[in-house]
């Protein structure tokens, strides 16, 4: 039963490594389809008290749809005025014209006044993407908590 020392350990530890090694090591078919949280890795930081920048690091061979992002506060209030950068146009005869992101995307999200007054804000980010190997993921909801610098009070 023992495979004598011929084991390659590929650490794709979501919490430990910067780049998911398994994405590069696609051995065989469906070689390690990533979990959506690993394919589309979210982080966020405050640029100022009223603006949060959400960043997605997208694994190689995966992409996200520009028109499938939505942002809400922790309490579920949908946020408007989000600045989605231009993506790469994808023209599908069948599904029409869309734009997609690969590698990295940074999105500026305005923080509403009520939330900006507190020390941190919870953002619920919904997104959807696919892998070139031939699957599309269900919409993914991720929550990030961002510390906010305090606005000067008048």
């Amino acid at each position, binding site marked *: 039963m023992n495979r004598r020392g011929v084991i390659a350990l*590929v650490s794709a530890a979501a919490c430990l490594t910067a780049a998911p090694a398994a994405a590069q090591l696609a051995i065989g078919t469906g070689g390690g389809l990533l979990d959506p949280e690993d394919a589309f890795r979210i982080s966020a930081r405050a640029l100022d008290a009223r603006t949060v920048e959400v960043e997605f690091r997208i694994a190689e061979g995966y992409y996200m749809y520009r028109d499938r992002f939505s942002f809400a506060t922790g309490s579920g209030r949908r946020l408007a005025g989000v600045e989605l950068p231009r993506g790469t146009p994808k023209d599908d005869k069948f599904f029409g014209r869309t734009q997609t992101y690969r590698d990295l995307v940074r999105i500026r999200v305005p923080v509403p006044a009520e939330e900006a007054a507190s020390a941190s804000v919870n953002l619920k980010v919904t997104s959807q993407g696919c892998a070139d190997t031939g699957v*599309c993921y269900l919409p993914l909801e991720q929550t990030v908590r961002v510390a906010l610098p305090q606005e000067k009070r008048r």
Partner: protein
Amino acid sequence: MRRAILAFALLGAAAAALGDEASVRRMLESGLGGAGQIESVRKAPFAGLYEVVLRASDGRRIYYVDGEASVIIAGQIFDAKSGRNLTEERQRELNRVTWESLPLQWAITSVRGSGRRKIAILSDPNCPFCKRFEEDLAKLDDITVHILPYAVIRPESVRQAKAVWCSKDRVKAWNDLMFRRIEPKAPTGCDNPIEKLIEFGRRIGANSTPTWFLETGERYSGALPIEETRRLLDAASPARR
């Protein structure tokens, strides 16, 4: 994020060196708290590691720990000689369902030729890879295709899938939508399994489309190349003469 928390919980669980399934499980459990539910612990057939299967809301996850549960490996293990992804193979084994347990009464079924090769697909009308996969399958003869309409990718998928189900000729309505982008016109009010299929898919952790099953119960994700799919179909249902 959830995984990070879990990893720390597992690291924190490190205790005295012992090293059998039961003691590894005890060491893990004492540190896990509510982070997840251990489904099984067993000695992995390589490298002196233990395989830990955790049940999360969206399915099972495999981790590996050493005999002292002092480190955790969250990743995939390949056999360096053959290149086989051992973690993926094990995942497939864990994800196996019995063919009989699939809700095929909610499927849109078409049979070609003898229908001897059988496949069931969780498919969304707005998933480009589902379209490609079904187009490929349409080229195969002697096959039974069960489409389980899994309306999850876009909000409009739900209405479309219901309208297909409420159509007189479901196969035609589905194929018109999938292959020709002809919207189904039937009203959506009929008794239909679309919501129940969404529940079913989530319960079995189908977080991508197409997710499909062979008669052996093996589960696959994605539109594999047609030659590969054909090979798998043949292996799962040998030719009868």
